[in-house]
């Protein structure tokens, strides 16, 4: 079984649209939306939720003001300034380190498992197993939720004898991205020919190398700036990476998005579909 993660460094380059398109061509797959911060794949694949689970991560702490003797030890020890003057805990800056809980001499602080989000085991409109998740508002630890989604995807793929796990990755280079690419067979990097796209591409290539993951590059909206596209091709060449496709800018992409449809379905004869089929042939 092969695991492929679509990443980009920069946001908004077309990761989700491409993942959705590939999912329509590939056979015998499981898809996983690992952008748990702002998941969008469900807007194109319309999964029917079959199972739903709470995701617990980290600890939540609470001070019992009746028990508290206001000795101030917790406030002195907390490095995240999460304990207010009136000895209540502010959940936003709290990192969940538990220093307050361990130091409290009168055990006035209670500890509970923190429910940080939910994840779903679903099936898309055309019966592809799909694992996705949603992080509760203002929760952290999205990297752990990504790992959970991948774990479930792997379980599902093993259960259904799937050949591929197709992962829609998060933007950036931080913990959720690390969790989405570690141990995969291929990182499919989507970039765009803007200076910011190039900047972020260089960083994400380093990340993939850091995790020892093979990568290939796709330039989306390549005709917005041909000079930058050429530079991207040069970077790929220097880095020993294959630039496997260039997708032109076309309003059909936004139109299909607004219609809530994958391009392969919205405009089956459009040239973009030919390119996407080629991409799949190259990466499968």
């Amino acid at each position, binding site marked *: 079984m092969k695991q492929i993660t679509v990443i*980009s*460094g*920069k*946001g*908004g*380059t077309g990761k*989700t649209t491409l993942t959705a398109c590939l999912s329509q061509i590939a056979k015998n797959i499981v898809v996983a939306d690992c952008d748990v*911060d*702002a998941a*969008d794949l469900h*807007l194109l694949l319309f999964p029917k939720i079959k199972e739903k689970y709470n995701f617990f991560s*980290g*600890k939540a702490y609470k001070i019992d003001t009746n028990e508290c003797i206001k000795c101030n030890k917790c406030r002195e*020890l907390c*490095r*995240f300034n999460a304990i207010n003057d009136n000895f209540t805990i502010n959940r*936003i*800056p709290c*990192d*969940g*380190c*538990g*220093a307050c809980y*361990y*130091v409290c001499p009168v055990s006035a602080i209670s500890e509970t498992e923190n429910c940080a989000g939910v994840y779903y085991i679903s099936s898309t409109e055309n019966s592809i197993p799909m694992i996705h998740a949603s*992080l509760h*508002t*203002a929760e*952290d*630890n*999205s*990297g752990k939720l990504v790992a959970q989604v991948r774990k479930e995807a792997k379980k599902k793929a093993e259960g259904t004898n799937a050949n591929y796990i197709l992962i829609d990755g*998060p*933007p*950036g*280079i*931080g*913990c*959720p*991205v*690390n969790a989405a690419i570690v141990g995969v067979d291929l990182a499919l990097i989507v970039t*765009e*020919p*803007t*200076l*910011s796209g190039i*900047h*972020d591409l260089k*960083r994400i290539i*380093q*990340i993939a190398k*850091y995790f020892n993951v093979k990568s290939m590059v796709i330039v989306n909206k390549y005709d*917005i*700036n041909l000079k*930058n596209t050429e530079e991207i091709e040069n970077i790929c060449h220097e880095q020993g990476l294959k630039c496997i496709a260039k997708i032109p800018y076309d*309003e059909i992409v*936004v139109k299909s*998005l*607004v219609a*809530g449809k994958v391009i392969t379905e919205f405009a089956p004869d459009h040239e973009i579909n030919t390119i996407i089929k080629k991409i799949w042939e190259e990466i499968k």
Partner: protein
Amino acid sequence: MKIAVASGKGGTGKTLISTNIFNILSDAIYLDCDVEEPNGHIFLKTETIRKESVYIPVPEINESKCVFCGRCSQVCNFNAIIVARRKVLVFPELCHGCGSCAYFCNKKAIVETPKEVGRIETGIYKGKWVYTGRLNIGEPMSPPVIKKLKEKAAGIDTDIILDSPPGTSCPVIETISGADYVILVTEPTPFGLNDLKLAVNVVRKLKLPLGIVINKSDLGDSTVKKYCKKEKIKLLLEIPHDIWIAESYSRGELITDTEKFAGIFKKLFKDIRMETI
């Protein structure tokens, strides 16, 4: 006034909005808080005049003092220390720098040593300070870098523009906390709307005033506008799709270097100021 520019979704134009607001202000500070992929400097073309490291304190074990009691591991909520029979293993990449392990070690066998997690680059654009945070490759946690970045502008009485990372989790919250106003940039597509709703929830949870900018406003549908109306959120500005904007953006240029857009962004800033009075 501290203005944070966020979006939920990536690629909607946060950096476009934040660098161009910064450009029309005569006195301001720009903080690029998208420390995983900072792009502001590309448009502001700042030369770095100073680089400084951001550290978090991570434990180092003095094994001659350690009695392998396991207390440090017990109080570490992030599994960054494991105590074996005659060996203590430290995983610095899991450490949040909370200091519990050192504090609770009865034998004083733990010292905290600084570990670099990222850098802050200082630059100048038209006489104004530009600070760019940069997370080190492979480093999972950006909030310490963002925190340090925000310290740069602490206590300074001028307008501060915070370019936020995408998403809705810890790095975004670290960035927008304490802002006087949050601009959410979105696109009129189902993706844009979905992520906008998530971002609005975050901003509301932090009880901050907010307004919306729709980028490429004529390239989708009207659901974002309807949502703003229903939720009574101020629609600050609509920027139609314009190939000239896309091209100048791809070359790293500021659109407010033209008179037309300078006027539009000055009005945007004035409207925000009115909103916060």
